[in-house]
């Protein structure tokens, strides 16, 4: 009996996991270009994807140079949100008193639009990198805290009791049981936080900066240079993707045992 042929080489390559988003992106770009041609959309409203690619190609060194301050502010802000967010979450999860005092205020503060108070940071801290780091920190702080609280609260109390019954000190039990159990939730919060930190850094730059992608955005909007504006947006999106991927890889390393990290294994007959 002749066996049906398995999927061919090209088809397998096209189906590889990492190629799919690229294919979808190409599809979106083609659709974008077609829409512009079909509806005759003028270049000062939406730039043609070809023009954006040209700008990316030509101005790549300049854009990379401007991307560095933004990246630096994003990473610093993100690390601060992780550094402060996780301990705050521990406190909130560990103590009903702290939770009842602090958590509602935290939620309240989240609704304050950061772009409105960003100019104040420039007044207080000057025109350097600090206002941008604070802006990135403030945007990234809340997701980390909320997810981490969720994580710490969902630790199985029986496990904790078992470990304590085996004479584990509070600290030892925390490191061996509470923290690992909370890790998956913490990482999901960190992934959201890192993409928000990019936004925060750009908001900080809009408000007061001589450099960075936010500055490039402002400048291109003022001169109606839409291709450059979109190119800057592409760079920001790429920055978010890269940082997200890095956090994802760190997660893979830290919690390889978690169900979300399982690969799909296809067992041949």
């Amino acid at each position, binding site marked *: 009996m002749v066996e049906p042929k398995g999927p061919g080489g090209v088809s397998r390559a096209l189906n590889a996991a990492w190629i799919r988003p690229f294919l979808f992106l190409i599809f979106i770009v083609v659709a974008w270009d077609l829409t512009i041609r079909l509806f005759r959309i*003028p*270049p000062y409203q939406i730039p043609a994807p070809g023009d954006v690619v040209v700008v990316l190609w030509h101005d790549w060194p300049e854009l990379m140079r401007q991307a560095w301050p933004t990246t630096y502010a994003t990473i610093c802000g993100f690390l601060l949100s992780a550094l402060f967010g996780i301990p705050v979450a521990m406190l909130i999860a560990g103590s009903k008193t702290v939770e009842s005092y602090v958590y509602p205020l935290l939620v309240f503060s989240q609704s304050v639009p950061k772009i409105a108070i960003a100019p104040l940071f420039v007044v207080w801290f000057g*025109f350097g990198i600090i206002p941008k780091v604070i802006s990135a920190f403030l945007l990234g702080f809340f997701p980390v805290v909320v997810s981490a609280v969720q994580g710490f609260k969902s630790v199985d109390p029986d496990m904790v009791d078992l470990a304590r019954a085996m004479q584990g000190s509070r600290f030892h039990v925390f490191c061996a049981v509470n923290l690992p159990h909370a890790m998956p939730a913490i990482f999901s919060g960190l992934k959201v936080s890192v993409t928000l930190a990019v936004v925060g850094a750009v908001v900080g730059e809009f*408000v*007061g900066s*001589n450099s960075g992608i936010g500055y490039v955005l*402002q*400048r291109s*909007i003022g001169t109606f240079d839409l291709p450059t504006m979109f190119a800057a947006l592409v760079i920001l999106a790429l920055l978010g993707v890269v940082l997200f991927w890095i956090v994802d890889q760190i997660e893979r390393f830290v919690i390889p045992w978690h169900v979300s990290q399982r690969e799909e294994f296809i067992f041949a007959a």
Partner: protein
Amino acid sequence: MIRFIAALSSVLVWMALAMAPAAAADKVVLMLNWYVYGEHAPFYYGKAKGIYAAENIDLEIQEGRGSAATTQAVAAKTADFGYVDVPTMMRAAVKGAPVVATGVLLQTSPMSAMGFVEKNIKKPEDIKGKTVAITPADSMTQIWPLFLKKTGLKEGDFTTVAGDGQTKLNAVINGQADLLLGYVMDQSMKIKDATGKDVYPIKFADYGINMVSSGMVANTDYVKANADLVKRFMSATTKAVEAAEKDPKAAAQSILDANPKGGKIDTLTQGFELTVPLYRTPETEGKRPFQVTDQNMTDTVNLLVEYGGLEGKAKDNPKAFYTNDYLPK
């Protein structure tokens, strides 16, 4: 029964009559170049005094977020008219935006570098060694290099800090910057409101920068389709400006009546009074407002092409950017 039917039908007829519209006024949306300040007094005054209503126009005034944003709104027809910096509009027009200036109000530039009077920065040479606050790519920052050229200053002679509109004001108020680039009647008054201290502007126009500034712009398709409305709007706006010139305080008050948080009466009045001298050049002295000369517009275009980064093809037809055809005689 009969009485009931009679009563019901009379009520229905009354309702129908009440709802029948009288000759409806034309709804027009005017978007300003920025949040409201003294320069905008004539529009609010014209609305308050019924000058627009007399031309059968129901005017709605919206504050804007920069001339670039307002120009794009007009190009996209989300606003019927825009009051914007005409050089900024030209940059958009040359990239294909269907906008045209139906009247240029400020025929002399209000752009300036301003700082507290007590800092004693009165001449361009005094700018050396100081800190200047700018907003990247706004209308003044695009002309700033030309001002530096005309006054012999170089970028290295002073420090620059960049931020948005609010940050610029905060920087000067709090001493983080000595000067900011702004319009003589806008930021100077806001700083005076906040600190009570006077501000001295070094006007670009005093150093050979002869170019027009704010004017009324509209979408070219809108103008073609509503020629009569545009004529009536420009006629009403001209009359409103002339009326405001005669009574600056009342004009400023009309801003506050429409927008109680729009500022303080003294500084709004002062701001408007600082704007009036910019309406005319020596060539248009005595003429009605908005009647810009072709020479002034050509000079503006040439200046922008040479130093302001405007594309060269703009020089081919400066008349494409404006029209005086809709102005009252």
